[in-house]
């Protein structure tokens, strides 16, 4: 990098060429007052008129934020002229836009106070008369208020909402003295504006300043944002984004920023073990509880036992839990709720490429030329990832959306394919057909790196565009445009989510995407990859750690004798070579009486699975059900014994995010009540049951064992992670990790094309159930945690069934009217929301509300290969109440 030499206040300084004087000064510890400068901004705002400096050879002072450094430049930051100018600007700001520090929540944390102190202006104006504004305060958001009377119009909130968040929800309104930022309905309550506001204009309600901060990872979605938990007297009082974490660079969503402290400290947290007595629970001591669970589980060793592990818990927790199932209970019946979402990804990407994980880092998205987003609404489900896609589109990437629903990204998209739910495969086959027919395929890539191409072309030969249009409802021209755009722009990248996987042909859907990427050579390079968007914060890690019935940790085959031997040697016991049961199968067989005891950790199948009426029945039929969680979930209510678990804030460990980044989770507070970390509880039960190999004192020791047995994690240790996350595979201590997979060869060697056959959803609308129900996550809720947060409940208080105006008119249903949604499996009474976001014939619910669970309605028919249920399509009808 070219650097130039300059002096600021007599101090010789080196600065990169093109850098503005302001940043060069600040980087070298020379403070120049400023309120509106943003380093990441493309162009300086230059509105606060404070950062004046004198430059030798210039007639008058210039703003340091706009002036690039130059070789030999001589800068003075404290000339009398400069001081005079700054003073006036500061005086004006204080006289007008700083009504009263004593009543301001930002008192002593205010940038304007810092500026005033630096330029020597008293907070009580002297020369000028105090003339405060009297604009209306906006306190409509549950988490923060906008007091425009304190706004200095620095524009930072507008900038961050536009350039970083991409929501464009804030802009200035009115002119001159009355100008003020204003929010519109596209606000996502992420609070980026609050975080960046230098004064008291945008502040959190109930703002508290922490005495210390602990760096850790957000427990909501699988993006894995770095956060700082702010503490005061053992209580979490603040959350802020970790600006150094490459995953989020300081950004957070509403759930992460405002939804953590309240659930961690919620009064509903389980604080002591509970045992079922009659229809209720009674508290018991840990000794009694451990003794009880050890005694009862001892009766169900082998295939009568199943364990459902947690996609919310740490890698260390998951590793111990699967080890518990395999070693102590002698059972491969271990699975997690990742099955409900990510099964097809593991199978199809595993077989096509050799790894079921994201091929590229999230950073790559922003430099892609084309982004194909299918079956996911990341703006709601994974907001920080959604922001990256919006930024990419803003930077000129062509965005192709395939989604039956009008998701937020549609407004940023070049093409929107509004396909019928469950018809993605038809769409993808149509696109591939065009790419092959029009000679857009990357034949040299296919020749060099792939196999089985002929089988694919053969399978497509019977599938033409007309059929694709008929099945998907998307016009042929749009399918053609999408194919040409994706194939024609490089690098191109694919993101997909549960909208693609939660189908009886979910695995085929993912095969199709793998085919599409290989067909155009869009894999293995920078910004050309496949991004499966997993749901929960540690869905990736739970699978990596072996919470899978058919695979040992790190996806090592049970059937491989060398591998089994390795684990048997390490764990000191024989292992069953037989694959265990998946989540759905465990509950099905429980209904049949084959599984008799279940240990469920941090999962709520009684709310999350399809057709939960049946699931609840199965859980009730169990002879022994132990549930370990932080709240008394729907599942825990059915348990014989409930064990109180510590939340992510109360333990050390690691999460692995969707881009395979293993990141350190640090204990911030003592466990609430008498709760304990999952690994500790499982270890105590194991020890009580006489097992060895469970005598860990700290999760870092568990990670050391993980590293010794899982080649992908071979180089990972807590100590190494102190310096930041590592993207696995990281086979040894001296390797840096692997941001991109499949760069030279695929993990499995050659990429394998899979022939495709179209199949419709298991349940299609008919006369009796004429509408399709699909499920989409709300921006404001995820699992049981967000439901404990008042503000999030204010933003999204209840389950709604979103219905197209045409359907609503046909049914005579009004907006906000209570209706009954009825499927072959159940009935849910909810309010209708009339919106064109849902296409005609399709309604949508969020499945996050225990009081009105959409999963009473959903179809539990499984995808044959991955055993993932078809949660995304159910036939329903709507009746007026």
């Amino acid at each position, binding site marked *: 990098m070219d650097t130039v030499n300059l002096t600021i206040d007599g101090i010789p300084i080196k600065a990169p060429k093109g850098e503005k004087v302001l940043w060069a000064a600040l980087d070298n510890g020379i403070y120049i007052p400023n309120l509106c400068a943003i380093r990441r901004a493309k162009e300086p705002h230059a509105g606060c*008129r404070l950062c004046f400096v004198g430059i030798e050879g210039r007639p*008058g002072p210039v703003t340091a934020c706009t002036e690039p450094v130059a070789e030999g430049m001589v800068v003075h930051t404290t000339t009398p002229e400069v001081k005079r100018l700054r003073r*006036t600007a500061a005086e004006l*700001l204080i*006289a007008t836009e700083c009504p009263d520090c004593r009543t301001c929540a930002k008192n002593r944390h205010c940038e304007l106070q810092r500026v005033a102190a630096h330029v020597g202006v008293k907070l009580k104006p002297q020369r*000028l008369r105090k003339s405060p504004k009297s604009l209306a305060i906006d306190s409509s958001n549950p988490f923060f208020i906008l007091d425009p009377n304190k706004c200095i119009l620095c524009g930072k909130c507008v900038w961050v909402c536009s350039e970083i968040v991409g929501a464009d929800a804030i802009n200035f309104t009115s*002119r001159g*003295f009355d*100008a003020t930022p204003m929010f519109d309905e596209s606000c996502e309550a992420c609070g980026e504006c609050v975080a960046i506001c230098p004064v008291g204009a945008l502040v959190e309600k109930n703002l508290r300043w922490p005495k210390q901060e602990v760096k850790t990872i957000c427990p909501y979605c699988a993006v894995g944002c770095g956060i700082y938990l702010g503490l005061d007297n053992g209580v979490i009082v603040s959350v802020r984004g970790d600006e150094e974490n490459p995953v989020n660079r300081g950004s957070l969503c509403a759930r992460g920023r405002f939804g953590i402290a309240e659930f961690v400290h919620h009064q509903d947290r389980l604080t002591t073990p509970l045992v079922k007595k009659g229809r209720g629970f009674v508290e018991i001591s840990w000794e009694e509880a451990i003794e009880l669970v050890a005694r009862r589980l001892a009766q169900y060793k082998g295939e009568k036992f199943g364990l459902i592990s947690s996609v919310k818990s740490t890698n260390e927790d998951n590793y111990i839990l699967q080890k518990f199932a395999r070693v102590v209970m002698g059972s491969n019946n271990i699975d997690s709720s990742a099955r409900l979402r990510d099964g097809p990804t593991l199978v199809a990407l595993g077989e096509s490429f050799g790894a079921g994980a994201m091929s590229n880092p999230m950073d790559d998205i922003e430099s892609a030329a084309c982004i194909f987003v299918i079956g996911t609404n990341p703006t709601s489900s994974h907001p920080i990832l959604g922001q990256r896609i919006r930024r990419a589109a803003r930077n000129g990437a062509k965005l192709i959306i395939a989604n039956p629903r009008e998701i937020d990204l549609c407004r940023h998209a070049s093409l929107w394919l509004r396909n019928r739910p469950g018809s993605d495969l038809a769409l993808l086959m149509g696109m591939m057909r065009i790419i092959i027919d029009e000679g857009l395929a990357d034949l040299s890539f296919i020749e060099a790196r792939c196999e089985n191409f002929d089988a694919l072309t053969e399978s497509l030969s019977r599938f033409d565009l007309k059929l694709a249009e008929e099945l998907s409802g998307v016009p042929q021209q749009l399918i053609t445009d999408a194919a040409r755009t994706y194939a024609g722009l490089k690098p191109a990248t694919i993101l997909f989510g549960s909208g693609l996987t939660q189908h009886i042909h979910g695995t085929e859907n993912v095969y199709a995407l793998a085919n599409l990427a290989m067909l155009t050579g869009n894999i293995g390079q920078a910004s050309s990859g496949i991004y499966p968007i997993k749901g929960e914060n540690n869905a990736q890690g739970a699978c990596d750690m072996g919470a899978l019935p058919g695979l040992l940790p790190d996806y090592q085959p049970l059937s491989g004798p060398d591998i089994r031997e390795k684990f048997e040697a390490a764990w000191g016991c024989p292992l069953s070579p037989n694959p265990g049961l998946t989540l759905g199968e465990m509950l099905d067989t429980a209904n049949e009486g084959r599984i008799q005891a279940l240990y469920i950790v941090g999962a709520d199948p009684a709310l999350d699975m399809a057709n939960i009426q049946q699931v609840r029945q199965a859980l009730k039929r169990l002879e022994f059900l132990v549930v370990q969680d932080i709240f008394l979930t729907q599942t825990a209510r059915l348990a014989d014994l409930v064990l109180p678990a510590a939340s992510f804030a109360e333990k050390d460990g690691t999460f692995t995010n969707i881009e395979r980044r293993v990141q350190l989770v640090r204990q911030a507070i003592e466990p609430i009540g008498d709760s304990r970390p999952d690994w500790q509880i499982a270890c105590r039960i194991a020890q009580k049951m006489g097992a060895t190999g469970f005598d860990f004192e700290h999760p870092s020791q568990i990670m050391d064992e993980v590293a010794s047995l899982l080649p992908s994690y071979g180089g990972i240790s807590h100590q190494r992670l102190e310096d930041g996350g590592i993207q696995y595979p990281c086979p040894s201590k001296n390797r840096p990790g692997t941001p991109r997979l499949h760069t030279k060869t695929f993990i499995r060697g050659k990429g394998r094309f899979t022939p495709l056959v179209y199949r419709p959803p298991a349940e299609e609308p008919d006369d009796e159930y004429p509408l399709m129900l699909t499920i989409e996550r709300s921006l404001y809720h995820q699992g049981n945690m967000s439901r404990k947060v008042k503000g999030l409940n204010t933003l999204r208080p209840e389950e709604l069934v979103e219905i197209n105006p045409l359907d609503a008119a046909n049914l005579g249903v009004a907006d906000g009217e209570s209706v009954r949604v009825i499927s072959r499996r159940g009935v849910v009474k909810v309010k209708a929301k009339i919106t064109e976001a849902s296409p005609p014939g399709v309604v949508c619910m969020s499945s996050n509300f225990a009081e009105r669970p959409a999963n009473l309605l959903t179809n539990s028919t499984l995808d044959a290969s991955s055993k993932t249920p078809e949660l995304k399509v159910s036939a329903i009808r709507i009746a007026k109440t």
Partner: protein
Amino acid sequence: MSVRGRFIVKLGTPDELRSFRESIVAQMDPQKLCVRICMTGCRAYGAVRIRDAFLKEIKGRGLEKEVEIRETGCHGFCARAPVITIDPKDIFYQQLTAEDVPEIIDQTLLKGEIIDRLVYADPATGEKFPFNADVPFYKNQTKNVLRNCGVIDPRNISHYIARDGYDALSKVLTTTTPVEVIDTVEQSGLRGRGGAGFPTGRKWRFVRDAHGDPKYLVCNGDEGDPGAFMDRAVMEGDPHSVLEGMLIAAYAMGVEVGYIYVRAEYPIAVEHLKIAIAQAQELGLLGENILGSGFNFEIRVKEGAGAFVCGEETALLASIEGRRGMPRPRPPFPAQSGLWDKPTNINNVETYANVPLIILKGSEWYSSIGTERSKGTKIFSLAGKINNTGLVEVPIGTPVRKVIYDIGGGIPGGRRLKAVQTGGPSGGFVPEEHLDLPIDYDTLQAIGSIMGSGGMVVMDEDTCMVDVARFFLEFTNDESCGKCSICRLGSQQMLDTLTRITQGKGREEDIELLVELGKQVRDISLCGLGRTLPNPVLTSTNFFRDEYEAHIKEKRCPALVCEELVSYYILPEKCEGCMICLRNCPSEAIMGGKRMVHVIDQSKCTKCGTCLSLCPTRFSAVVKVSGEQIPVPEEPIPVAPRKPKTA
């Protein structure tokens, strides 16, 4: 003679343009009777009714073939609206009504007689001027840019072409390289007419040399100064001259897309520009392969939404892009990074309208007009306390006094001129003693004002300079976009301070505060709006400091304008107790009775002035005073008995 329907074939070469012009000219009869009616500015005074009356009468008498009724742009002499000119004799009639029309037809059109009543008479001398060319208002002007305004029908491209329109374009496309065009413009000395006065040719060269593709051209028609209507007149009255200027500029800089940003409050300008663009496209003078040269250019009209700051070039560009119109720091200048971050040339309407003339008549001719450093002519709009309000074009460098007195006809009612506000609300006051200064880019700056875009508001002795400064600041404060602190808050503090002074609540240190704040707002604001808005305050505190001091120290408004500082009194020796003011006082503040001396209860008086205006002039008992108290009785007393008539 509309283009539509008559010429299906586009003009494919310069020769075809020439023969097209020749055919138009051949069809025109210079001796034909033609009534030119201003249908732009004069509309406000009933021009539509006059035109309709002409059309009806002409039709009624079957004179359609003999008489042309031509709707033109502004003739300039707005004080005398509505105005018409009758060709071929160049007869000038003013302050018409529709009722005058039959007589005009009978007497003037048919018999060639001049109607004395409608002729302009100099208010001072009473001398009559029946012909345009003799009217002092017109005679002392140099109409170059306005040569077509008021002459042609701006909605008819043939009229423009007939007067050598698009000849300059044809000339550059056939005989001149783009760089030579820039050389010519640079040699002409043309400087930006928006007010900043940047050399146009040099700006064009920057854009031509800038890296980036495509490049854009923008015409700034967001004329926002109150009382300024120069650009409006050009866009309304001669839109093709703007288009031709833009075409030549586009050719010179290698640009294919241009925007005209025009305020939506100028509906006629918008309409005429759109018609002009459509007609030029139809003839192939805009679009692809213009006159067979391979040069392509299209023009889009973007209507502004009424924000003054959008006249600032970076705010204007943001507005075209669809963002909130707020200025950004320069550099980068638009020439480097403008519209959508591409090199962009932005000039004012009047600047572009100068270009065809420079090309046709040459840079030497052009630079022979004006001063050493300011070349060509400039259009000014005269407004305020002046006899001949209107639009005038004079060589740059003409003294202010000449414009005000020789063209503008001086101050009405024989009052004394106090100051001339030049350059709009962000200009400054030129006091009487500086009236002999030449108006150009540089000289007025020396006394704190600017030539600006050409607004000229004249103030007489009845004007309170503190109040006027407050008025202009109220405007700029309201129009500040709010982005930069010093403009948003500095203007507010200054406005508050001025308001307090006009209310008699000023402090002695307020003048220094105003000057200090004013200088800082001028020196450190982000854009031109902020940098010029203190000018009215700075020049008035400089030249009329005594008025400020009177307001502050004596609580007196010398011009008797500031409401809080004036009082109304009834002089007891003059009051005849006639009850007129008493009965009409809306706040019942006047005590008295028949033949009792009326007394104004100052605590109830709202200073509406009704009493002053109603008191019979033969009494003139009501007076308005400031800073003094007049001794009046506390209670009504009987009017002094009339002197007994002697036998």
